[in-house]
């Protein structure tokens, strides 16, 4: 549905997007995540034909963003980050105006507006559609913005920070709505908060300093978390030193950190990457007659991965800057 090849964008001397390539297939919900200023919005602005790339190619639904921009625009619904709306217009008026710009035939406009109002919970308070946009709360403005992009039922939705500025209940509602939309539309959304995208998207692209740091399904990315695996076990039935000695003797164990309180010894066992020591530990406890009250494996969260990768990219970027200076 979307193909991006070697896209680069310079703002004067600043490189915002540095040679990125990716593909988005039909029906995917793709999350762009990265720290602020990573190049997420810039990539979206290029995809939606707001600005051209310095070099590289991008196609949306088979149309080139540069040479066939009108057809790209017809196939995309784009909600910019700040959700800009005309404050003096009424909600229905604004949606009718957008419908006219979106080539919806005059007779179908009213029905289209009613349909998206229903979908984005704008029809609930009776007078909502008659209210002035400038008087709406942030949450409602966001809904109007989303309603706008759904008007012409585009195959591709590009949403820049759709949950920013919303309260937790609204964030959850927005997330559910986006997940529903994924059934009919290909969605690209951006965020700098990983937890929000992790649950909504079925494909993540992590961007840092204009480059793709990692991409893949959330589960796949989680698997790629580097660093030693850890097991936490709470045992009773032997001296702390004996427990540590015995566990340390297991193959694949790197280090053991014990701590004892009211008779139970809590062991944090660090092992080699991709090694699961739980079976060995429980077998050992059974053989020695130790009591085992907790045994779990701690997997690095995607959040750790995200922070680590962004950190690394930032360090690399700083190095580049100092080298060129």
């Amino acid at each position: 549905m979307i193909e991006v090849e070697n896209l680069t964008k310079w703002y004067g001397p600043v490189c915002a997007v540095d040679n990125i390539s990716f593909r988005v297939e039909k029906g995917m919900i793709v999350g762009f995540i990265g720290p602020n200023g990573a190049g997420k919005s810039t990539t979206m602005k290029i995809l939606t034909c707001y600005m051209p790339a310095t070099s590289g190619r991008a196609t949306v639904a088979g149309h080139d963003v540069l040479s066939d921009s009108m057809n790209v625009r017809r196939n995309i619904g784009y909600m910019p980050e700040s959700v800009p709306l005309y404050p003096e217009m009424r909600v229905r008026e604004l949606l009718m105006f957008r419908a006219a710009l979106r080539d919806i035939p005059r007779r179908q406009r009213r029905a289209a507006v009613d349909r998206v109002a229903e979908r984005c919970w704008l029809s609930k308070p009776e007078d909502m559609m008659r209210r002035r946009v400038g008087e709406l709360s942030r949450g409602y403005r966001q809904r109007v913005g989303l309603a706008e992009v759904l008007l012409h039922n585009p195959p591709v939705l590009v949403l820049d920070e759709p949950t920013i500025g919303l309260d937790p209940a609204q964030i959850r509602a927005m997330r559910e709505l986006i997940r529903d939309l994924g059934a009919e539309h290909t969605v690209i959304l951006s965020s700098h908060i990983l937890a929000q995208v992790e649950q909504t998207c079925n494909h993540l692209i992590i961007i840092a300093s204009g480059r793709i740091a990692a991409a893949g399904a959330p589960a796949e990315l989680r698997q790629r978390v580097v660093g030693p695996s850890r097991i936490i076990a709470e045992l009773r039935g032997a001296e702390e030193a004996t427990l540590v000695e015995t566990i340390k003797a297991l193959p694949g164990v790197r280090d053991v950190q014990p701590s004892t309180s009211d008779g139970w010894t809590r062991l944090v066992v660090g092992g080699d990457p991709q090694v699961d020591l739980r079976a060995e530990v429980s077998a050992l406890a059974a053989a020695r007659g130790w009591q085992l009250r907790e045994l779990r494996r701690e997997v690095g969260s995607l959040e750790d991965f995200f922070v680590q990768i962004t950190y690394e990219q930032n360090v690399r970027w700083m190095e580049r800057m100092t080298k060129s200076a």
Partner: protein
Amino acid sequence: MHKTLAVARRELAGYFYSPVAYVVGALFLLASGLWFFYRIFIPGNEASLRPLFEAMAYIMVFATPLLTMRLVSDEIRSGTIETLMTSPVTDAAVVVGKFLGVLAFYLVLLAGTVVFLALMAVYGQPDLGVAATGYLGMVLLGAAYLSVGLFASTLTPHQLVAAIVGTAILAIFAIMMQVLVANAGEPWNYLAAKLNAMAYFRDFSCGMFDTRGVVFFLTATGLFLFLSVKTLESRRWR
């Protein structure tokens, strides 16, 4: 075409929401009304709107940029330009739509001055032919002025800057050229005479239908609309 009209309709409706438009409209009608009652509507005077048209043409140098200043500037400042320029609408349709919207509001303002003509008809016999060419002149002049103001508005996100730039450009053609005609040396005064907007307008207010004026104002309108489209397009590249 229907998208151009949709943009135009939105702009026109926007003027009726905007306090600035009411203030500008009120001041324009006040100024032209004062001029009318103290300079023209006097027993024994000629029953003609000619001096009024001239005064209105000068007022418009300051009034039209105030009407056009928000057209594009406000969209750039608030970011709505982004949704507009990612809609399947050409930049030319946006510019022409906005121009038609403000032109419609300008015609509404101008229609307010017909009262003066009606009052005059009650007490005398104004020449309706002269009034008709006068109004035609006002429409042509207004179209050119508004396109200049629209162009100024595409240059900056600040409305005030747009208004000042617009007034400055208009002052060059409406005021400075007259000074040049009277004072400049041999080749320059001839050139200034060709660019003197007020001279072309005076023909219309006298009751003359001069195609030179029509061509001048329509060319100026077309030129500044074209420049507006180009500056709007260039935003993508900057």
